[in-house]
Structure formats: C-alpha cells, structure tokens
C-alpha cells in the first residue's frame, strides 16, 4: 500500500488507550469487553468489529451501527463515545482491528431478570417500560428500526437509566414500499409478520418485541421460546389466537401464509394466559395492544406512552434505589440459563447458548 509514513491520523485514538477488564457479551458482529481508559479511568464497553467476511471490506452492519449511533443521541439510547483501531503489527498478523467504544452500563435486562433476588415492583416495571418505549419513540421518529429487540439488548445503568443497545441489525426505513430482509430479530421476539415473510415492514416489529419484553418483566423468562419458525408461529397462535384474515385483513397475501401450517380455531388468550403473572388490569391491556397480530393495529410507541398504565397509581418509579442493593454487574452473557418458558410449556427447546467452558458458579462479575 503506497501510503507515506509521515502522515498521522489525529482522530482515531489507538486502542492502547484502554485496558481490557473482562468479556461481557457477544454482539451481532463481535465480542464485547469491559475496559478502562488508562488515563481518565473511565470504564467503557468495547465492541470488537469482526472482519470475518474479508471480501465485503468493513462490514456493512458495523457501518450501519456507527452511522446510526452517530445520529441518535438520547438518554435511552446507548452512547457511542468513539471508534478506535489497533494498528496492524506482526502480533496480529498485519490485520488491524476496529472497536466501537460505548459508555459502560452495569446491567442488561436479561441478566437482571435471570437473578431471582432482583425483584421489580409494579412502579419499577412501569419505569422500565416507559424508558424502553421512549427509546423506541425516539428511534422511530428518526426513521430507524432496531430489528433486534430482546432483553439482552436492553442495558440498565446502576443509576437505573435504560439504554437500547446493539444497533448491529438496525437500519433506516422509509414510508414507501420497501423490500427489507425478513431474516432479522431473535426468533423468540420475532413478530408474526416477519415469520410469515413480510418484507415491507415498519416500526411495529419493534413494538412486538417490546410486548414480549414487557411480559417477561413478570414471567422472568422469554414468553414464547420456539425452536423453529413454524414452532414460533404455533406458540404465537396459541397465545394471540389463530392467524386468519378475519382478525388480520391482508395476512393471506403474505408469502408464507399458505405455505406454513397455522393452528386453526385458537382463541386469543393474551390476558387470560398472563393473568397468573400480571395482576394489573392496565398492564394486561397494554400487553394485549402490543401483542396485536396485525401490525397495522399494534399500538405505536407514542400511543403506548399515553396508555393509562403509565398514568395511574402507582406511578413509574426510578430504579436507582432498588439497584443500589446490588454491587455486581448482571449480564445475560454471564448469567446461568433462565428457567424454561412458563406460559406455553414448549417441548425441550434448546437453552440459550452459553460459551463452552463457562463456569456456572461465576454468575455475576464483580464490577463496582
């Protein structure tokens, strides 16, 4: 490469600026580490950009995450601090590595929910959901779809601030007719329209995920843990009722509607099924609206934020007090697998994949 050595790049600081402390997760396109700025002692999260597909050059998923997070600046969106690179040396076989550097958040929601000692009051659940919907409202009004809603991608600081994270699958959307890939969203949080092959989808896909996460605040584990797309659709039908044109006009036009066998004659039982866990009527009503099969009838983030759930007693309450009881980080990556799905009794579904050699006694990393 004919690049003169005199030129220096003042912007991108060298990764030597940080020291790695622990691996805390596995993102869509790379590992995540907890690290510390050697000078300022600020703790950060560093996400390694995997350069697996060398033909593609710098991965488009990483480019998307970078450009989207540079535009999105909000209290409920994870804050991208900078991008840095380790230079190519003989030690890394002349391959340079790029890291995205984020503000550090102590917990993720999946990690918190998998710890039975962590208990959320109704008012605290309201605060979690309010911040989650507020984050979604912000990204959707900026014409961004998250496309990977799940409890592990919801970070929570020890001060109780919620941050939407992992924009590795996110992309901009327009109101025109589109053809996006429908191979997005972790299966258990994937909405019925994606499972049926819709490619012209919109913000409603993230609100389905928000509904799954909201129910999880009480059930403590993902509510529909399908093994396959077919199985996931079965679980959805058992909870939300049969997928038919009478309740969802136009569904018959989706590519896979006629190709997949869908359970018939199922009644919608969202409120009944969840009633065992969720006693609050307002919560059940909002859940019912978020888990609407027909994406055009699913509540949007603005209307959800105006739902009575957030405006009747007990009012949303900050999490900092409850979280101050814990001095350890809780991340899904470091936590033991959560209990099997309580509401749909699925057959032996594979557990959340854990890295090999993980010691189940080391559930939570001591952080602060």
């Amino acid at each position, binding site marked *: *490469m*004919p*690049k*003169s050595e005199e*030129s220096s*790049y003042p*912007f*991108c600081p060298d990764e030597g600026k940080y020291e790695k402390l622990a691996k805390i997760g596995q993102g869509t396109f790379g590992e995540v580490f907890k690290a510390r700025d050697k000078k300022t002692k600020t703790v950060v999260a560093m996400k390694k950009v995997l350069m697996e597909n*060398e*033909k*593609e*050059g*710098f991965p*488009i998923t990483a*480019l998307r995450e*970078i*450009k*989207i997070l*540079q*535009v999105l*600046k909000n209290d409920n969106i994870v804050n991208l601090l900078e*991008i840095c*690179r380790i230079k190519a040396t*003989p030690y890394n076989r*002349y391959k*340079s590595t*790029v890291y995205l550097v984020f503000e550090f958040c102590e917990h993720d929601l999946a990690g918190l929910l998998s710890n039975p000692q962590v208990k959320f009051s109704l008012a605290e659940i309201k605060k979690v959901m309010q911040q989650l919907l507020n984050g979604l409202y912000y990204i959707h009004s*900026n*014409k*961004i779809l998250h496309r990977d809603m799940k409890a592990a991608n919801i970070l929570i600081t020890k001060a109780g601030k919620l941050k939407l994270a992992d924009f590795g699958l996110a*992309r*901009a959307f327009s109101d025109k007719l589109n053809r996006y890939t429908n191979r997005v969203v972790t299966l258990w949080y994937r909405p019925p329209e994606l499972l049926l092959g819709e490619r012209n989808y919109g913000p409603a896909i993230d609100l389905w995920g928000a509904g799954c996460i909201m129910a999880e605040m009480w059930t403590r584990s993902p509510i529909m843990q399908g093994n396959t797309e077919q199985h996931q659709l079965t679980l959805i039908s058992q909870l939300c009722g049969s997928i038919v044109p009478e309740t969802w006009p136009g569904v018959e036009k989706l590519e896979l509607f006629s190709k997949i066998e869908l359970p018939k004659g199922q009644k919608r039982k969202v409120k009944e099924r969840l009633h065992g866990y969720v006693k609050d009527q307002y919560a059940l009503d909002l859940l019912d609206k978020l888990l609407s099969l027909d994406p055009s009838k699913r509540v949007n983030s603005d209307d959800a934020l105006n739902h009575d759930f957030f405006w009747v007693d007990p009012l949303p309450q900050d999490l900092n007090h409850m979280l101050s009881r814990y001095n350890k980080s809780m991340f899904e990556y470091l936590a033991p697998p959560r209990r099997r799905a309580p509401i749909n009794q699925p057959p032996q579904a594979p557990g959340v994949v854990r890295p090999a050699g993980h010691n189940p006694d080391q559930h939570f990393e001591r952080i602060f």
Partner: protein
Amino acid sequence: MAGNFWASSHYQQWILDRQDLYRERHNDLTVITEEEYQKIIMLFANVIQALGEQLKFRQQVIATATIYFKRFYARNSLKCIDPWLMAPTCAFLASKVEEFGVISNSRLMTACQSIVKNKFGHAFSGEYPYRTQHVLECEFYLLEMMDCCLIMYHPYRPLVKFCADLNAEADLLPVAWKMVNDSLRTDAPLLYPPYLIALACLHLAAIVKQKDIKGWCAELNVDIDKCMDVTKMMVSLYEMWKTYDEKKEIQAILAKMPKPSLSRPPSEATIQDNSQQQQPNQQQMSSGVS
C-alpha cells in the same frame, strides 16, 4: 434516516475553514499550482462519476463518494495514497453507507479497469494496477481519516424543496441540479453547508433562465455573503472550463503531481511485502528442521 444537519458530524466536524484547507494543502502547492491542484481533484471527481455511472449508482451515492475523496485529501497530501486507488475506494464505501447494497469486488475492479481504459486513456496509460485487497486496505485508512463520519448531507434535497416553494420545478430545477453536480468539482462542499450550495446554484440557474427570484430571495434568512462566495466559486469554475481541455492538459499535470516514493508498481510492491513477511517464518521452520 432524516437526522439533523446542525447536530451532524458533517456540520460539526466537516465544514472546514478556508485557511485550514489551504494550510493542509500547502505542501502539495509547493510542487503544483493551485489551479493544477484543482484540475487534479476535478479529474478524480470525473473518475468517480464515471465509475458510479458504470455501476449504476444514484447521484446521491456518487456525491457522497466524491466528498469522501475530497475529505481525505483535505487532510492528506496527494502523495499519501494514490488517488487512482482512493477513487474506487470512496465509491465502494459510499455504496455501503448509502444502502445501495454491496457491490462485488470483481464488479468494482472490472469497472475500474474499463473506465480507465475507455474513458481516461488521456490520463492513465497502461493497465489499472490495483486489486481488491488494495481497496479493502485503503478503506480502513479512509474510514479512520474521516473519523468514521459517514453521514453526508447534499444540496439536492434542499434544492428540490426551494424549487417547490418557488414553483420552479420545471424551469429552474433541472439547470440548478446540474450545477449542484458541478459544485462537486469545487471546494464548496468542504467549506459550505449544502443548503447554501443549493441556494447559490438556484441563484445562478435563475440568471441563466432569466427568471426573477429576487422577491423570494429577499425573504430568506441566510448569510448572503457566504452564498455569494459559493456563486463566485461556481462562476470561476465555469470560467476555467471555457479554456480548459482535460484531455490535452491533464497528463502533464499528473506528471508533476506529488507521488509516493515507490519505485515499483504497487501491486508488485505488495507481493514483495508479503514475501518479506513470510521470510522469518520460513527461516524459523528451516531452523526447526535442522
């Protein structure tokens, strides 16, 4: 993704000061004149345009690629990385950032070879020397140098809005649109926000089309002096084009262009480099055997 221009990296980090720009360019300008410098940058804007047309890019992708190119050389000497390599690298990165879809490496390299041969024979003699691996490596430098500031705002969108407001979609828009394309051959995109470039081009288009838009302009709350700066840049570009023949003159200018101090063609150089890297291993292996 609409975003907010005033909060963007484009506005906050990449609207440069004219003095800054000239200071960075100073070293190159000891070897070539200012006008020659502009002619080189213009040549590569044309290369990127041709490459983009060959690959059927939208104009927005081409504009983004062209400004990436300008940004790199706004901070680096022309000898730093060969512009013949930087041009396709900018096109490659812009196609991904603008969600045009990833173009396959072979298509990109074939397009390079074909336009160099068929359209820029007056500027480049011989085979196009770079390969995919050079583009991928160069992409890293480009990203790093831009501090990963990828989002670009262009004058096209404000221009369309202004024309709609003026009811001038039929007469002024096509002329002004072409002028915005021409503005990519000047320093204007590095120095002024896109809406000012759009206004300057609209102003010039109104003069060309002899349409009176003074009343509309009078109600604008913009810095008219800055707008006039852009207009002047455009006018001097058109003045230059009256007498400039790229086909005849560019070869001599490129011969003077500052170049990296490499005696071999870069493709060979890299092969050489690789073999040097492998040598220690081979030595280790052979010593292990003995």
